[in-house]
């Protein structure tokens, strides 16, 4: 099994593992080491041939392997580069690389509308996280941004092409999860756009997953549009017996009171869904009675969604609740982690 060292942390991984997967293994082994995981906007471990496009996961390889210790001449996409035994990788330790990554983020943002205040993805947007970590406060780009009219692609999906970063994830979903791809990228360069060519054409049992994999707000759920900010909703794990082949019915319900505002797949700590769900679960069962609720979804404490403290049990409504007993709260295990 090859051994790879990322930012000074060594891990042994199975043959054929990519640098990004190895870094995620380090992050899963010890939460404190999660800083070695490069950001990934286009790579999606559940989708074959994804990755390599966005260039945010670039890493430097100062030592190729034990056999061939030469450094790699250019930064490599960690999502598509397999590790070699003895490889050394610099992710956060190389200033030139950080500079290159900041450059990529700047490029991603120059044509992005930055309309987060009216975007449904705000709060769970990877581009927001990324620009918070690697972006600058002000843009140096002073020209007119590329714009497109929002269009409906299918009756449940809204496409805001202006927000798209062309990660190709939705194209891969359509190719690999649904039974036929009817949308893709047309035109080239900075005029490239995701399109169905004919509006309203996407009609497929699994098309809703395109929304889940979209790292930005380019593809949003038309049944949830402007219904609520995500951080005002309460995510609950739930399941049902789904008849659709290929769907295990395991979802997250986004509740406001007892009202199901939205149904999505369950996203893990890397922002990827655990399994793809069908459109029946996603759109046609917006009724709490149709689901077996398992409990609150564990959302990373850094996420704005968890700021709602939805996972704390409240016996009384907030307004009439007594002031919190701080010493007692401090003993509670789930709060200690915070």
């Amino acid at each position: 099994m090859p051994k790879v060292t990322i930012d000074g942390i060594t891990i042994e991984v199975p043959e054929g593992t990519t640098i990004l997967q190895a870094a995620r293994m380090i992050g899963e082994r010890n939460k404190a080491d999660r800083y070695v995981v490069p950001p990934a906007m286009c790579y999606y471990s559940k989708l074959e041939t994804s990755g390599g496009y966005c260039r945010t996961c670039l890493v430097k390889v100062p030592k190729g392997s034990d056999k061939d210790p030469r450094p790699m001449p250019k930064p490599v996409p960690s999502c598509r580069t397999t590790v070699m035994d003895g490889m050394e990788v610099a992710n956060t330790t190389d200033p030139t690389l950080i500079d290159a990554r900041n450059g990529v983020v700047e490029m991603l943002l120059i044509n992005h509308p930055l309309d987060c205040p009216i975007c449904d993805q705000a709060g769970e947007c990877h581009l927001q996280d990324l620009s918070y970590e690697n972006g600058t406060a002000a843009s140096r780009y002073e020209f007119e941004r590329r714009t497109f009219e929002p269009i409906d692609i299918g009756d449940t999906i809204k496409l805001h092409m202006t927000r798209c970063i062309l990660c190709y994830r939705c194209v891969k979903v359509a190719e690999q999860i649904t039974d036929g791809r009817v949308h893709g990228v047309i035109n080239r360069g900075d005029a490239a756009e995701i399109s169905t060519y004919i509006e309203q054409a996407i009609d497929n049992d699994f098309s809703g997953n395109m929304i889940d994999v979209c790292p930005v707000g380019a593809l949003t759920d038309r049944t949830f549009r402007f219904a609520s900010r995500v951080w005002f909703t309460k995510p609950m794990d739930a399941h049902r017996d789904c008849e659709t082949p290929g769907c295990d019915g395991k979802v997250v319900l986004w509740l406001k009171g007892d009202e199901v505002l939205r149904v999505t797949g369950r996203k893990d700590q890397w922002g990827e869904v655990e399994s793809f769900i069908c459109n029946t679960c996603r759109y046609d069962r917006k009724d709490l009675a149709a689901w077996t609720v398992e409990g609150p979804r564990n959302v990373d404490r850094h996420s704005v969604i968890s700021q709602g403290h939805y996972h704390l049990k409240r016996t009384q409504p907030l307004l009439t609740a007594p002031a919190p007993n701080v010493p007692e709260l401090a003993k509670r295990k789930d709060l200690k982690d915070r």
Partner: protein
Amino acid sequence: MARKILFEHIDKPGIRGLEGYRAHGGYRSVEKALRTMAPEAVVEEVKKSGLRGRGGAGFPTGMKWSFLAKPEGVPRYLVVNADESEPGTFKDRYLMERIPHLLIEGMVTSSFALGANTAFIYIRGEYFHVARILEQAIGEARAAGWLGRNILGSGFDLDIHVQVGAGAYICGEETALLESLEGKRGNPRLKPPFPAVKGLYQCPTVVNNVETIAAVVPIVNDGGEEYAKVGVGRSTGTKLISAGGNIKRPGVYEIELGLPCDEFINSDEYCGGVDGRAFKAVVPGGSSVPIVPYELFLRTAKGEPRLMSYESLSDGGFVSGTMLGSGGFYAYNDAQCIVRSTWNHARFYHHESCGQCSPCREGTGWLDKVLERLELGEGRAEDIDLLWDIQRKIEGNTICPLGDAAAWPVASAIRHFRDEFEYHVTHREKVKDPRHFAREPFRRTARPQTV
């Protein structure tokens, strides 16, 4: 008169047809290879010849061929890259128009060496008339038994198909070319795997430039060692250079590698010197290679005379050198504006970026817009540093070399002609006239700056 290898018979009447080509020793290499040589022996000759890829990168062809994977039961392909889209380059077109059988002959010999039974010519859409010439030549060759089943009774079969592209520059990148050839969108693939392992239809494939494949013919005819005697050092053989710009005699020239740059640009045998005014800058290998001031083209930074060879032109790295590239040579006189030319290049790369990876998709457009602003007299002092920063963030961070190709001309223009950029900021009213330097040549105030 310098020695010509590929163009030896190019002016002979009837050379375009099979009969005329045969009369001047055509298809001898096929006879020699198929009758007397093993495929490995042909690869060995190419290795000995030191032939390097003529499409721009200059990778040793013999080595590329020896990397070709040979799994059992999987077909192998030879693909000839005739998507000559680099601005300033038109050498392959001349070769294919004038002497198409040279390419076909090279393809038969090369396919035999590689064990490929199907070969493709991917030609750019703008060369439609050339594609017809090639198809006609292929028809003639097939009728005469140089193509098809059991060529010369050797048991070797070969078919050649001509595929016309749809006019995208990016389809000259080998993996984008393969995607396009498969009928998909011409997006470059991520490497590895390289085409030698998984190329066309996921089968081992060799992609070579037209000129490279044509050069296999003299290599097999006369032997690799004989070919290696021409040229200098690791730059062996001859190179086709398509010369243009402000020179007296534009055209396609076959030069022996190692020809002094001074002789190439000033002698009457080749470019014939400047057309009227004084030389300012030279791009020796197509729009993607760094532009250099005329003085640095003649002599390296160390003061040695520069030669037309892979090594000598890149002497000094990107600080004071450039590259031989694809041989799309063009020179500027002092009536030309470097900022305008750089903008023109940036506009081209902006238009041709495939849009797959972020730095190139967004960065090329940004370069274009900032340069437009500068050239049209709207620029600001900080724009020059901004340009430098943008190109730095594109270079090396993209999937394919288009990002680098877009960054290098900008970087080298700022590196060597920063004073001209500054002039555009300080003399905004003057540069609003599109012919500003034609009316009043730019006088250099400082010696070339190195960054």
